[in-house]
Each structure stands twice: as structure tokens, then as C-alpha cells.
């Protein structure tokens, strides 16, 4: 008995999405954890007000990091099935979690290049990148930005 072509294509796409998506996610999580350990010393705060010790002798600079991530076919399918019964969609949660942590890491990278020890007033922003508007979540952009404070070169002044 011959399977219809559509079904074969669908199953292939699902399999490709599952295998490559899984691999990519695991690799990404490993890289995120390694870099988070590396930047553990660089504080990221959502605090708007500077403590007095930062008010003098420091320079400030806006830093940001962004990333656009895409779902894989398998996740898209899982989410579509999930929509029937409702509930939390774990497949998308992990995607957004990864994207947010990646964006923060890129921001920290910029901050550490400046020699900063702390980033204040960090804001996160999420936006669906268009092109897939009709097909649900296709790719999502996450952006993190904040103000990095680093010691002024001639702090003694």
C-alpha cells in the first residue's frame, strides 16, 4: 500500500524538526549555561535608582543585545495540537526562555567589553517578527537593554 505523498512530506518535516530542533536546543542550552557561568560576576539589575557609590566616578553607556529565534516544525505541530485542549505550551516556553537568556548574554558581552561591573534598569522586549503572521508563532525577536556603569578612567578626579 502506498502512503499519500502529503503524509510522507509531513512526517519527514516532523522528523527533521524533531531531530534538528532537539539537537539545536540542547547545544544552545549548553552554550547558554557556559556563558552564564562566565558572566556571573557581571550583575544585571532591573533597578532604576543608582546606589550612592555608583553616582560618582562612573560613566554610563547604553548596552543591548538581541536575538531572533525560530520554532521548528515539530514544535509548531505540538503547539497546534495543544491549542485544541489548552494549557501551557512547553515547546514555546523553552524557545522564549532560550531567546531571553541569549539576549541578556549578548547585552552582558557588550557591557563586559566596556569593563562594566553592573547593568542597571534592564528591560526586555519581545516581538514577533513578521512574515509568519498567518501561521502562528514563526520567529520571535527578543531584545534586552540597559545602562552599563563602568569606572571612569580618571576616577581620582
Amino acid at each position, binding site marked *: 500500500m502506498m502512503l499519500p505523498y502529503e503524509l510522507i512530506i509531513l512526517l519527514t518535516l516532523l522528523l527533521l524538526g524533531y531531530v534538528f*530542533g532537539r539537537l539545536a536546543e540542547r547545544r544552545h542550552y549548553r552554550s547558554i549555561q557556559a556563558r552564564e557561568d562566565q558572566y556571573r560576576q557581571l550583575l544585571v539589575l532591573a533597578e532604576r535608582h543608582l546606589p550612592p557609590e*555608583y553616582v560618582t566616578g562612573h560613566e*554610563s553607556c547604553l548596552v543591548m543585545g538581541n536575538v531572533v529565534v525560530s520554532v521548528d516544525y515539530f514544535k509548531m505541530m505540538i503547539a497546534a495540537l495543544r491549542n485544541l485542549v489548552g494549557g501551557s505550551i512547553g515547546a514555546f516556553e523553552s524557545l522564549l526562555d532560550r531567546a531571553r537568556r541569549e539576549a541578556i548574554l549578548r547585552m552582558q558581552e557588550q557591557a563586559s567589553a566596556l569593563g562594566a561591573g553592573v547593568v542597571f534598569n534592564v528591560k526586555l*522586549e519581545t516581538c514577533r517578527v513578521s512574515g509568519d503572521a498567518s501561521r502562528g508563532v514563526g*520567529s520571535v*525577536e527578543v531584545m534586552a537593554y540597559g545602562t552599563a556603569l563602568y569606572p571612569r578612567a580618571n576616577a581620582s578626579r
Partner: protein
Amino acid sequence: MLISNLEIVPGMRVRRHLGLIQGSTVRAKHVGKDFMAGLKNIFGGELTGYTELMNESREAAMARLQEQATALGANAILNVRFATSTIAAGASEILVYGTAVELERMGV
């Protein structure tokens, strides 16, 4: 030009407040990149082309913000916020806004 998303700048004081300014840009992706992104939607992962595009557009928006600030005679932009929205099927708008101020160094 000093750009910050805090309300105060270390060691500086606001001398003059010049009001809200904004810079925005609407960008579309070209078909080739969109096609590649469509493929990427099967495998998942980062869309580097889009990440770069968003970065470039954000820089363009910030350049416009700075232009406005310079025209007003400001030397810093405080409390900067970013906003992104999808306005059409293939285009997104990036908006940057903040307060233009004239800062002076605090005498120590």
C-alpha cells in the same frame, strides 16, 4: 551624545529639559532572506539574518533620535525606551524614544 535608559547620569546634573524626542524606522526583509527563514522554520534555531537586520534598523532609529536631539541642542538623551511592532505582513517598525536634556558636570 550620551544615551542612557536611566533617569540620572553619574556625576552629571540636568541643566535644561528639552522634551520628548523619537526616532523610528520601518524595515522590510528581502525575499531571499524571508525564504531562508522559511526553511529555518522547519529546523528551528537562530535566524542570524533577521538578528542583524533588527540590529541595523535599531541603529538607524537611534541615528534619527540623535539627529533630533542635536537639533534641539541637547547633549544627552535619558530614559530611552525601545518598542517594536509588526505593522504589515513583511515589515516591522522600530521606535526609540527618550527625553532630550542638556547636562552639565557637577562641580566637586
